[in-house]
């Protein structure tokens, strides 16, 4: 097979530049195969993250020809002719080469009020497949953080990270809000502190999701509707107050321990 040329960004927080590598290419290879071969030969100190090499762990996210992709799932024969350009995710601070500091996502994860289910009956909860399926779609998320990377609310505005949790956590909130057992109410929290309103539904996140989760249609839009209803609709507000299974307020939810 023809050789492949890869232009890989190398550097750290203080700056960097592209380095070119030209290697032999074998049938069926993915970008990560080439990166591994570069490490084993020319540049053993080329930094990248990876674990499963099967699209299941979400570690090897990078930007390939400018687009967020998993390196382990990007076959070279699907890319256009010419050099393959590999750069780190842009929305996160550089650690080294292709490795970025993704701690923003772990900070956001720590803010999520946990599931609050009723006590479990003898023999386990009863839930129906059609009710768990909505949440199951969001739980396919492998936390590659490419939706966060591509979301222009933080990609172009670093300062928004203070008050915007991003698409990955909107699907997490949607999952909890739609969970058949959950008794927590996070709607005010989502509106006031997680910045759901900043999302203007450009669907960039949905396009890059390697798990093909319908982030915008199935999570963000329904979540926006729920949050807006809760905040502005007095009937819905009253309905919540008098329904037997009242969800607790966002403030209470945040401090209540999980079971």
């Amino acid at each position, binding site marked *: 097979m023809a050789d492949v040329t890869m232009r890989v960004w190398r550097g750290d927080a203080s700056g960097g530049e592209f380095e070119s590598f030209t290697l032999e290419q074998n049938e069926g290879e993915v970008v990560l195969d080439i990166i591994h071969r570069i490490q084993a030969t020319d540049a053993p100190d080329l930094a990248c993250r990876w674990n499963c090499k099967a699209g299941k762990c979400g570690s090897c996210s990078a930007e390939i020809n400018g687009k967020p992709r998993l390196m382990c799932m990007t076959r070279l024969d699907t890319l256009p002719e010419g050099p393959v350009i590999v750069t780190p995710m842009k929305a996160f601070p550089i650690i080294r080469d292709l490795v970025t500091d993704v701690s923003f996502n772990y900070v956001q994860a720590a803010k999520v009020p946990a599931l609050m289910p009723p006590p479990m009956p003898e023999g386990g909860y009863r839930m129906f497949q059609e009710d768990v399926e909505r949440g*199951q779609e969001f739980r396919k998320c492998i936390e590659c953080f490419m939706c966060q990377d591509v979301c222009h609310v933080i990609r172009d505005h670093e300062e928004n990270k203070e008050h915007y949790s991003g698409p990955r956590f909107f699907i997490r909130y949607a999952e909890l809000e739609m969970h058949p057992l959950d008794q927590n109410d996070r709607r005010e929290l989502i509106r006031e502190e997680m910045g759901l309103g900043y999302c203007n539904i450009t669907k960039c996140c949905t396009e890059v999701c390697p798990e093909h989760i319908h982030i915008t249609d199935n999570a963000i839009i329904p979540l926006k509707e729920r949050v807006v209803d809760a905040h502005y609709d007095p009937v819905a507000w009253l309905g919540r107050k008098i329904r037997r299974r009242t969800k607790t307020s966002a403030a209470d939810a945040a401090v209540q321990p999980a079971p």
Partner: protein
Amino acid sequence: MSEPTYEHHEYDVLIIGAGGAGLRAAIEAKQRGMKVGIVTKSLLGKAHTVMAEGGIAAAMGNIHAEDNWMVHFRDTMRGGKYLNNYRMAELHAKESPDRVWELEQWGALFDRTKDGKILQRDFGGHRYARLAHVGDRTGLELIRTLQQKVVSMGIDVFMECKVLKLVHDNDGRIAGCVGYWRATGEFVTFQAKSVILATGGIGRSWKFTSNSWESTGDGHAMALWAGAKLIDMECVQFHPTGMVWPLSVRGLLVTEGVRGDGGVLRNSLGERFMFNYVAPMFRDETADSEEEADKWYDDHNAGRRPPELLPRDEVARAINTEVKAGRGSPHGGVYLDIATRRSAEFIRRRLPSMYHQFMELAGVDITRESMEIGPTCHYMMGGVKVDADSQETIVPGLFAAGEVGGGMHGANRLGGNSLSDLVVFGRRAGIGAADYVEAGNVATAFNQREVDDAIIEALGPFEHTDGENPYDIQHDLQELMQSNVGIIRSAAELEVATKKLDEFTDRVKNVSVKGGRAYNPGWNLATDLPSMICVSKSVTLGATSRKESRGGHTRDDFPNADPELGKINFAQTTDGGNWDSPITIVESPLLVMPDDLKALLEETK
């Protein structure tokens, strides 16, 4: 020595590893009021648990009401060829249903039965449909659920930190560990009253493996160096169905769920060859015609089990034999066919990641074509010898849970029993460590010399200028273990491996790395090599010593099981505590099983 210039942390319970076992242990210890820290080589949520596909085994009886812990116990012991620590198999079978239900309280969303219970699927070696699952991504569900629970409890997690060595106090108790941050290369020490190893497996020493870069046997090796015993190190599981083509993905796991859901194995002549490989101990419960086997999927009382669902060791050996006999596929595997047996809609719903994986990586549509598959190094049955109830090792203050622990699975693990192992024994290790800390007889000092030695050793590769590239050594090690200590072993090949591994030891001492300490994969690999070489030696020594075939350990020159060897584990230790210290191996009798449990095994029903 002058004051250390690196970061230092102190905990009651320190857990090394953030897969299922480590996270579950952390939750338990934290609930007991301990100060808990978790150290992981990767980011949180990326551990190898995430790759588990088919399900978590628990005798909940949601599909077959006849199922119960006694049947699960029996299946586990038979699958393990009776080499198991019976007490672990017993605790595991009894406790796994509660551990699954508990995951649901923490947010897991398993697939459901029509009446709203947790759906369970069939798997090899399990008499009843027993695996709770979420399509074929159960490991992701398990790790995410535990991760989210850990985060909600505010437990400290130290990510991308490689632990080099355990540290003792002056009386031989465990006092913590020393490691470095991958991001900066700076060293860090953790002083702890107890340490739980939850580091997973060792599969990275083989060329074709389903394991990630992390599975370098760090916990196995560190336990050995710290004075603990390793048992059953010869028992390595080769999963029957790994991808074989393209080479880029060779070894990547194809879930046993494909066979549980109706997939069958065929050779190049189109024969369902597994009917020719039913061992005497499984003959009574295995179908002897395709017609009978096919009835079983819909009604377990209408026929006996298909032979494709024999335990993994049996299936992997059969595939190996077919390929050697010239009846393999073009790329050296056999065919796994579900396309002709189930509808495309069924396959996509039940096996979404398999569909995705083959479509994107191999260009194969599994709803229309057969998959090409072959055995891949998958799981380490052997590990640190522990007390079944507390998971404590013979080193005071040191605990081990999950794949790094030994005994639970005997000579061969059943599919689905590893996820349940993680949560059952992760929890027990958390309890064991908390009990140990509360009892008060914990380490008081922190042996600074051990810390200094580990740091000097880790920096060695920067000192040598003309040494070898660590990737070359890793490559040669993987080739050696694949060809000489693989699925079928012989005295002659093991002897060569033993000699070569000694040469590798010298090569590792002369390794050199380029660049600085900050996020340098070459250096990171150089610091993984000591444990990779050490566990490879240990597997080779165990395989040389066990002169019989049993479970995951198959000897060409001793093709049968030896009843006398079925009564013992091989236990390994070192003196001196260095990574290249010689390993000694002794016979260690199995625990004696009480009569009531023995009776369960003798039931033939």
